[in-house]
């Protein structure tokens, strides 16, 4: 019951015996049996790493490690650390708790209902240790290869290969001539001409409004001073707007001259206009 390595389960084999482990970088901690472990937690890359190193110290194939021994060693290690009041990272304590739990499961009478069984839990742990061990060994073998720049060397002073890029510019004669035409057309002096637009001049508005005002002392709306008459183009809205603006300025001018009065009762309300009684 000590050796939990599940003899009934097929286990992948990678390493034959412990030779395969020779030459691996050993962890930051070492130590013999029975409390000679010295503690150097910085040396461990986590609880799995510590377990792997403990397993290696069983000096057996990873397939045949004793999980119970391993658990005891791990728990012993953790206890020692706690006795020395070393602060242990949480994951080490979690692993310790889980291993204690696993140990109890392995030692207690079997509960046939339990899934997965303690043996299976142990197997999983073992599989994980095997995988980490395999990668650790692979890393070591990788590092031990003839490495470029350390063991083998590329040419120290290569001349280097250079590719000089050159542009071959393409352009047709027509492009040149057309471009010249474009430049010429673009830079020809531009003559601006303003088209004659239909307007009522201020002068004509002044005389018209002035004349119409003289005949009436009634308040009259400004718009009624505007000329109308279909045939003469006064229905042209542009011209009407011009006439309104000019007539308004004319009304202001007449008021300024003291010839007219202006009243507007509200903003944008009708603008009323009458002659000043002399």
């Amino acid at each position, binding site marked *: 019951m000590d050796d939990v390595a599940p003899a009934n389960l097929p286990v*992948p084999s*990678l390493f034959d015996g412990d030779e395969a482990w020779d030459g691996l970088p050993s962890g930051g901690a070492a130590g013999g049996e029975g409390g000679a472990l010295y503690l150097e937690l910085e040396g461990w*890359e986590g609880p799995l790493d510590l377990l792997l190193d403990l397993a290696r110290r069983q000096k057996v194939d990873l397939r045949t490690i004793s999980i119970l021994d391993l658990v005891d060693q791990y728990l012993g290690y953790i206890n020692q650390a706690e006795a020395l009041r070393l602060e242990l990272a949480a994951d080490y304590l979690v692993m310790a708790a889980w291993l204690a*739990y696993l140990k109890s499961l392995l030692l207690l009478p079997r509960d046939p209902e339990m899934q997965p069984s303690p043996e299976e839990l142990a197997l999983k742990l073992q599989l994980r240790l095997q995988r980490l061990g395999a990668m650790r060994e*692979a*890393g070591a073998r990788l590092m031990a290869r003839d490495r470029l720049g*350390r*063991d083998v060397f590329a040419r120290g002073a*290569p001349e280097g290969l250079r590719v000089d890029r050159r542009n071959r510019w393409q352009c047709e004669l027509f492009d040149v001539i057309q471009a010249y035409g474009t430049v010429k057309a673009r830079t020809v002096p531009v003559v601006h001409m303003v088209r004659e637009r239909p307007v009522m001049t201020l002068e004509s508005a002044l005389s018209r409004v002035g004349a119409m005002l003289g005949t009436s002392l009634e308040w009259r709306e400004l718009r009624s001073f505007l000329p109308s008459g279909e045939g003469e183009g006064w229905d042209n809205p542009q011209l009407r707007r011009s006439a309104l603006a000019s007539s308004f300025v004319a009304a202001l001018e007449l008021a300024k001259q003291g010839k007219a009065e202006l009243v507007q009762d509200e903003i944008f309300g009708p603008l009323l206009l009458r002659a000043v009684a002399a």
Partner: protein
Amino acid sequence: MSAPDDLVRAVEATLFAADRPLSVDEISRHLGGASVRGALAELQAHYAGRGVELVERGGRWHFQTAGDLAHLLRREKEDVRRLSRAATEALAIIAYHEPVSRAEIEAIRGVQTARGTLDVLMEAGWVRIAGRREVPGRPTIYATTGEFLAHFGLSSRRDLPGIEELRAAGLLDPVDDAFAVLTGGMEDDRGGSADGEDESS
């Protein structure tokens, strides 16, 4: 020794002069499209056993000094980066499992991978980001580079030491897969407890 033909000489000169390994295509393009495989084979044979060898690494060719002369050439001054244990393990895991996510690396190592660890490997030019895994969270996945192969003297990932044995032994499969195989496929809940830091992802 028979005189090498012009193409062989040209390939030899090109590779000697190049300041980095060249692919067959690059050599060919440099030589006006000539077919260079024959010349490469001839050169490789010619240099075999000499102090300088022609090697192919990840599809790229370069000359380098023979490995058995390392003791003569090793330079004290520019010693190669010494990788930390964490970085060495991460590199091995990436090389043997690529592409892998950080979570997968951590599942194998049983410990979190410090931020700087993968950076160191990428800065060395040995590891690159190889995209994202199309699973929830879309984790970044990592793979090795041609420079990795060149640095460690590998023609391809098939040359990784022991990779065939590891694969045959199932040691490159996730724990859960191996477990399922060993226990006859009972892939149910996995002991809920502390070992739960999933190999999956």
